[in-house]
């Protein structure tokens, strides 16, 4: 039942995400948005440094921003399904009475966003490597570390999304894409687009407490090790130590996600929130 819930939800999510237009327009849509997001940072960097793309800070910013797209994509994918099914399609109550596992259904709904997010990340990185001298060389990449880190990150983000989905069960639809809003908020603390040392000392502990910080560091090290180690923030930690920290944090995130979702789900059932429509 678990696998069936996940697989069917993934198929449904893909249909919802992709079949609103023809494949060409969908591809254009999937390219423009991430490239524009990256271009904002490129222009900001270029204006101030007069186009010094060879400095190690540029690939640090560029790659951090590129992989951070996964954060919004996966978290939104999982949590938006609550609002979408409850208030747009008004099918959440039917999902609840169907023989499926709701957490796996929600994670399955995020698969489509993960796939489109992967496309965006890939396009952004290829563009950076081809036109902006981001120093990625296939022979130098630690593919094993990259694959393991990416997989761990996706699991982590799905769990964070599940936590947010639980909270969303109790919230009205004031705004759209809560996952993007939360990802935007965490952007500040994760060291995605600047080293944590730039933050005021009293804010840095938040960054160190966030698993995304270690995940992004691992991805940078796997793709361009020399650049990632040019910044002192996490330089004293080995790859193995970073993986161990990330693994521990994922375990903690799993416990938090399960407890939070169960509690919120129970509250939503008790208060009759499963089939409500808000914010007319």
């Amino acid at each position, binding site marked *: 039942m678990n696998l069936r819930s996940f697989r069917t939800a993934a198929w449904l999510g893909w249909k919802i995400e992709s079949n*609103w*237009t023809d494949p060409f327009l969908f591809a254009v*849509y999937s390219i*423009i*948005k*991430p490239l*524009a*997001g990256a*271009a*904002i*940072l490129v*222009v*900001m*960097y*270029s*204006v*101030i*440094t007069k186009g010094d793309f060879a400095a190690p*800070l540029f690939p640090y*910013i560029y790659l951090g921003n590129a992989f951070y797209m996964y954060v919004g994509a996966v978290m939104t994918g999982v949590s938006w399904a609550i609002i979408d099914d409850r*208030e*747009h*399609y008004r099918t959440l109550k039917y999902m609840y009475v169907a023989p499926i596992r709701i957490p796996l259904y929600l994670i399955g709904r995020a698969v489509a966003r993960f796939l489109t997010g992967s496309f965006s990340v890939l396009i952004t990185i290829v563009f950076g490597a081809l036109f902006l001298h981001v120093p990625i060389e296939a022979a130098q990449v630690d593919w094993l570390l990259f694959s393991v880190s990416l997989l761990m990150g996706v699991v982590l983000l799905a769990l964070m999304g599940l936590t947010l989905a639980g909270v969303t069960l109790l*919230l*009205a639809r*004031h*705004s*759209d*894409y*809560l996952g993007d*809003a*939360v990802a*935007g*908020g*965490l*952007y*500040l*603390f994760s060291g*995605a*687009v*600047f*080293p944590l040392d*730039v*933050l005021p000392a009293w804010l840095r502990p938040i960054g160190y407490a966030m698993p995304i910080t270690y995940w992004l560091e691992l991805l940078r090290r796997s793709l361009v090790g020399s650049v990632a180690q040019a910044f002192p923030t996490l330089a004293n930690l080995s790859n193995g130590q970073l993986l161990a920290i990330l693994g521990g944090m994922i375990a903690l995130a799993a416990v938090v996600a399960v407890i939070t979702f169960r509690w919120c789900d129970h509250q939503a059932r008790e208060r009759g929130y499963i089939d409500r*429509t*808000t*914010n*007319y």
Partner: protein
Amino acid sequence: METAIRKNTGWRLFIQTILGRAYPRVVGMSREKSWLFFDIFLPMLSVSAYVFVYRAIGAPEEYIGFVVVGGAMTAFWMNILWSMSSQLYWEKETGNLALYIMSPTNLMAVLLGSLAFKVQYALGSFWQLLLVFFLAMTALYGMGMMTASLFLLLSREAWHIANLAQEPIYLVAGFYFPIKSFNFWVAAAASIIPLTLGLDAMRQLVFPSGPALGFLNVRVEIFILSGLAVLFITAARILLRKMERLAIREGRLTESRR
């Protein structure tokens, strides 16, 4: 005995519609205040990240001010996209649109009512700044109403188009850097979005180094913004009527291609 109901017409009906549409939003927002966290606090953190990017690359302090002003204005753009342009699509999906069309009122008022209390406003004291802000907002909301009329005809693609019009617009309108960073023709083309010139003029008026980084003279920008305000409000009025008629004729008001 029946109670006599006073039936408003003209501008009274317009105002009544705005208040009537805003009412459920205001009540909903005051009942549950999670939006304070998700719509105000978190976006502030997100904008702060751009401040620290400038710090990391050693930018002059006024660039940080540029980000703060640009970041504050993103609230208005998001408001236009999600609470105005795509509003008619959402009304259609939830089944309210047909009721609005049937009622003896104006769609512009419905759109204005849907905006209530969704934005945090930040005004300066300088009269020219106020004028720029007023003109930019008028033109922007006119543009929002105009694009809402197109959304009247769209179905699920409306959602994705609104979603697409975020980062590319932040980029071309210079939300986080001076628009002068682009070449003249790119900046000129981007000026069709009222926030481009509005932001540029506000930055010129607020920051000491603003005029040096400005795209056009503030007076010229005020003149263009005035023209855009008139153009967009007029176009919105015409297009909303046309699109409403077209949507009725083609049976799209109650259509839900999910």
